[in-house]
């Protein structure tokens, strides 16, 4: 007697020539059931669908937006004027409301440095004269160590003269000339990406 199912099982492996093993469509386990079961998760506790005593039936509108980056059009509370009506609303909704001492802020990205303000105008003039006397010896870093400040601040107080600046620029150009195409292109790409962070990449 002709059984079409048997015929199909025998015929198929020959058709599927790409498979090395002879396969038959025999379902040992229900895939659909396994996968749907895995997806069956309880809602997140933040998800406002669970019924409470205040709202036993769902007659209100539920607003559960997906997780997203905050919008720049929502002005931070600190930036709102004193008489803005949103200030009170946002303060009431913020997590720091009420218990500021219990609040733990996330760790800072870089070490927080307290500004010392320990330098006097005489220090500034001394810094400038040292820099002028021998810019090769009294570099920004060395002056920063000497006066206990940052090299950025030294650059602001005691700028190098044009001769020194040209010399260092030429030196940097010489170094850049030594670069091969890969390093040069990588640097160019990096600079482009960095420029985009300021908002130019539109994201």
């Amino acid at each position, binding site marked *: 007697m002709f059984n079409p199912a048997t015929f199909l099982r025998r015929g198929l492996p020959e058709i599927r020539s790409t498979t090395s093993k002879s396969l038959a469509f025999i379902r040992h386990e229900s895939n659909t059931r396994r996968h749907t079961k895995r997806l069956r998760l309880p809602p997140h506790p933040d998800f406002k669908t669970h019924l409470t005593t205040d709202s036993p039936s769902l007659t209100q509108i539920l607003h559960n937006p997906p997780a997203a980056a905050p919008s720049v059009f929502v002005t931070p509370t600190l930036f709102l004027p004193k008489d803005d009506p949103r200030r009170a609303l946002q303060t009431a909704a913020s997590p720091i409301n009420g218990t500021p001492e219990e*609040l733990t*802020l996330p760790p*800072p990205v870089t070490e927080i440095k307290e500004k010392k303000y320990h330098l006097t105008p005489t220090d500034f003039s001394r810094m400038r004269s040292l820099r002028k006397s021998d810019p090769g010896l009294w570099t920004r870093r060395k002056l920063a160590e000497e006066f206990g400040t940052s090299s950025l601040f030294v650059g602001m107080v005691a700028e190098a003269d044009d001769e020194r600046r040209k010399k260092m620029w030429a030196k940097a150009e010489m170094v850049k000339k030594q670069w091969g195409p890969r390093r040069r292109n990588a640097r160019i790409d990096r600079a482009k990406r960095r420029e985009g962070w300021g908002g130019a990449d539109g994201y």
Partner: protein
Amino acid sequence: MKRMRCAGLLRDQLLPIRHPSARMFPPHHIRRTPHFTATTTTTTTTNPRPLSTSTRNRNSATTTAPAPVETSNPNPPATTSPEPPQPSSSPPPPQTAPTTLPPCRSPTTSAKLAALHARLSLHPKFPVQTLARALIHPSADPNPLFNNRSLTTLGSALINYYATEWLLCTYPRLPAEVLRAALSAYVGAKALASMGREWGVESAFEPRADVDAGLLQFKRLPPGPEVEASGYKWWQEKGERWTNGVPEEEATASFVTSTFAGVYLHEGVGPVKQFFRQHVLSRKLDIDKLFNFVQPTRELSSLCSREGFEPPIARHISETGRRSIAPVFVVGVYSGLEKIGEGHGGSMNEARIRAAVNALKGWYLYSPAPQVDLPSKTDDDPHAPFRPAVIDVGEVIV
């Protein structure tokens, strides 16, 4: 003087510029009346005036102007008017048989113009003749009584004012450069030209005498290398600006601007503000995408010290995949206990800088909570209740 010039133009305006032999359309019998200077020039403007573009013709018109003064009566015998003396440089063109123009040349009988009028939902008080005049760029017809230059001047003042006041009242802290960019995005030539295309305005191939009155008429820029700002040099005189022709974008923008002026003149202040809201402010502009900060972290520090906030500190909120090819870091900028910005990026530095950028955008994109009243609200009703705009101290200078 204007009458004389008009009459002179009437004679030789039909001199084709490039094809002197193809003189097809002598003066015709279609009435074209300018609508705003009609009281002074009614007698001259009953003359039919197809388009003229040639500077040479204009010059010859001024030189030979006294001759046809007598012919500029209200009903000139257009086909039989005597030829005024020609300058010696240009011989008189051969006379051809008078040809009647198609009815679509007249604004009142042009189907395209009526359709455009209906499509824009203009009030019946807005005559189609004004719409027809708005479609004639000065490069097609240099006579200010017939082209849209005066309408464009008025319309551009109107829309620039309405756009500026709306932007300044909605985003009072916007930096000047961003404000300029947003202005040009709303009422710049490109935006207006795209608006004109959406209105379904088509351009005539050439500003000839027989084109449909519902087509945009301008002299096209000849093909060639790209010229900056339609070939206009700042040292050039205004009259010389359109001798080479203009790009279609500029002509379309001038039509759209003139339409705003027409709505203002025929319908009033209220309707033009509504027309502006419906056609300009209804367009979506991502103002937050117009910013580009060079030193965002430094600018944020200056902002905080200027406003007396605590100095901003970048804090590491969360991260994922630090050792993977695509890590994501989330960094927030805090001033004291309050978070003023949050950013994410592929590196900690990127996230930190983006957070500073977002904090600055949050400052600059502040908008007053109940929308303040625009100053133009008191245009039609001086006693209307008015809530003044917020005036900010200005952007941060690093």
